[in-house]
């Protein structure tokens, strides 16, 4: 696609996908870029380029109108996970309506709308296609599905817009790349069934390629299109390869049922169990924890209500013996998946990218091997000196 004499507005420009998109647009496509910036403090990566940075927010349609002036295309990446339930919904859903509204007013040549595989919720084992039912299981998926519906309505009225549903997007600056490495650094990571499950991962550059194709084909193809790599990997492989930058990393198999029970216990006893887990892995930490007013009070209350159970948990002589024992068996802390990630890690559905291939001409350029090699070269660069502290 020729973008060299065009201007592209990017929302979510300070984010991970928006940031890489702008690098590609400028360094490889030769496009002019306008970026809508909500927080300038996050603009360091973006500011490396000759980009028009416009202060604004997708929920503020006037700021969008101002930013979109003179733009030929719009890529809508903006999303929020940290603005509270209502704020996240406003940015994801109302923000999308505003983007479409402005795109229509300005009669832009094309819009690429970034959605997510999360609109499917927890799909059953087997192939997952655009025809599979969208049954989101969390707020993020529900908001994104509602945003897609708004996009589709504008599309019916003639807006040239393509919807893309990327899968697990990894690469430099991705949560899905920093998270596994950070978890493996913290301790031994538990994955359902040892992570012998399906991870539909896609290297960020392949998503950018799909976005560029989406812009090009926005007039003729609405989507939605699933965007992933040619082949999935297992979650165990995904974690293990991200952990390759560490000296030591370990994945521990546990049946899904056991993790589920653990999460139920966490739900009811979370604070206490976490405190105990911390205490038994750190010499002296238990007495400190019990000294903290809130925790001490909780333990005392629990002792009164459940004397037997708590005696077992906190009796000093037993706890010392237990610590020694667990230190032998558990040299490093066990990291359990949080409930929000459990279904993701237990996934057995395999994404098909046939529709994107056929309609958009999408061909992933990166195997997992190639993507992870670049990701880890970045990870080593970012982490090269962090582990060395004054106290080492």
């Amino acid at each position, binding site marked *: 696609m020729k973008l060299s004499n065009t201007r592209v507005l990017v929302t979510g420009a300070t984010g991970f996908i928006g940031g890489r998109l702008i690098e590609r647009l400028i*360094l490889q496509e030769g496009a002019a870029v306008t970026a809508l910036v909500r927080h*300038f*403090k996050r603009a*360091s990566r973006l500011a490396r380029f000759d980009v028009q940075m416009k202060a604004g927010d997708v929920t503020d349609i006037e700021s969008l109108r101002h930013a979109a002036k003179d733009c030929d295309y719009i890529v809508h990446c903006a999303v929020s996970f940290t603005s509270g339930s209502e704020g996240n919904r406003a940015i994801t859903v109302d923000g999308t309506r505003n983007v479409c509204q402005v795109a229509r007013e300005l009669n832009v040549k094309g819009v690429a709308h970034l959605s997510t595989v999360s609109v499917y919720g927890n799909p059953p084992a087997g192939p997952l296609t655009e025809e599979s039912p969208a049954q989101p299981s969390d707020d993020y998926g529900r908001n994104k599905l509602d945003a897609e519906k708004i996009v589709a309505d504008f599309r019916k009225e003639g807006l040239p817009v393509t919807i893309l549903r990327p899968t697990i997007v990894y690469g430099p600056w991705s949560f899905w790349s920093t998270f596994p490495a950070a978890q493996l650094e913290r301790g031994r990571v538990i994955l359902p069934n040892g992570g012998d499950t399906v991870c539909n991962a896609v290297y960020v550059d392949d998503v950018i390629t799909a976005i560029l194709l989406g812009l090009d084909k926005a007039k003729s193809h609405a989507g939605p299109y699933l965007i992933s790599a040619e082949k999935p990997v297992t979650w165990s492989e995904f974690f293990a390869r991200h952990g390759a930058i560490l000296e030591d990393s370990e994945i521990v198999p546990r049946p899904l049922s056991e993790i589920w029970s653990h999460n139920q216990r966490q739900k009811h006893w979370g604070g206490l169990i976490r405190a105990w887990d911390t205490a038994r892995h750190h010499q002296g930490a238990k007495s400190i924890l019990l000294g903290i007013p809130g925790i001490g009070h909780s333990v005392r209350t629990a002792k009164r209500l459940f004397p037997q159970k708590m005696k077992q948990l906190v009796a000093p002589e037993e706890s010392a013996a237990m610590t020694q024992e667990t230190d032998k068996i558990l040299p490093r802390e066990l990291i359990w998946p949080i409930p929000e990630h459990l279904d993701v890690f237990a996934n057995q559905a395999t994404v098909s990218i046939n529709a994107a291939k056929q309609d958009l001409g999408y061909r992933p350029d990166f195997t997992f091997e190639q993507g992870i090699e670049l990701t880890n070269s970045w990870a080593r660069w970012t982490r090269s000196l962090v582990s060395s502290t*004054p*106290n080492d």
Partner: protein
Amino acid sequence: MRADPIRIAIIGCGAVSELLHLPALADRAEVDTTLLVDKNETRARELAEKYKVPNHAPAWNKHSEEFDAAIIALPHFLHASVTEELLDAGKHVLVEKPMALSTAECDTMISAAAQSKATLTVGQMRRFCPAVAMAKTLVERNLIGEVRNFAVHDGVVFAWPVASDFQFRKESAGGGVLVDAGAHALDMVIALLGTPEVTAYRDDAAGGVEADCEIDLRLPNGATGFVELSRTRELKNSIRIEGTLGALEVFFYQNQFRIEGLNPQQAYPVIAAPDAELTPDMAIWPLMIRLQLADWIESISDERPPQVSGEEGRKVVNLIECCYATKTPLRFPWVKQSASLSQ
């Protein structure tokens, strides 16, 4: 010694004034903050109310009689012109780093200071970090012998609460991380080891301002140095200096240093420098700014030169100029560039 408090105006009411200068000034009995200046009058009024500053204004000119000295915390491109105007009006000036965008501007500011007899100092506060100051004494007393090489790793993920894009535009900021954190890192090298020359410079800017860069340096005795600066990564935030007799490493955000003998096994434990009551990482900033303000105020009342004179500030700007003049791209394997678009 003067008996009356020195009356201070703050020109520019951005985050640095609110978070660092105003609290530091509020602690000192020998100064009165009398005027806040910002073209955004609402902002100036809010801060004036919060810190009980008697007056505020969109420009200082009509309030010249209300202050003796001024702190300039404006976008970098305004440092030179506003400093010159204030010095010409006989006001003492503390101008935030970088002193200016070019050595030519620095020269004009230095001449203005010489003619006015007012005190000009530059906000290069890292050399006031007690651990850095102590390391300087130890290096000067030959603790580690002759310096052979040094390395600075200076990086925090940029999170300064900026309200506009001035920090991110070449024309207003003069550059990216090099003129920002880099001004502190280079001044620290100058304070500890003398003025180096730039042998190579690489950064990741392509039409904008750099977020990451690397500088190769050489000291007059031939010792080599490496400086790595980042707005995207948490780095070690230290300077390590190796000499013929041992090594010294200063962790400037923690106000700590470590000394090693020739045999690596002979490392002494990490030592916290005096005044280290502020140990959490970034809490060192209020301490450094208090120490630099004290130096400036004393230099005004005692009529002596400040520790960071205009000439010292100019050395940093000169190194920054040399870096940009020798720039080559800092390339990453995960960021490819079309051959046709290569700069």
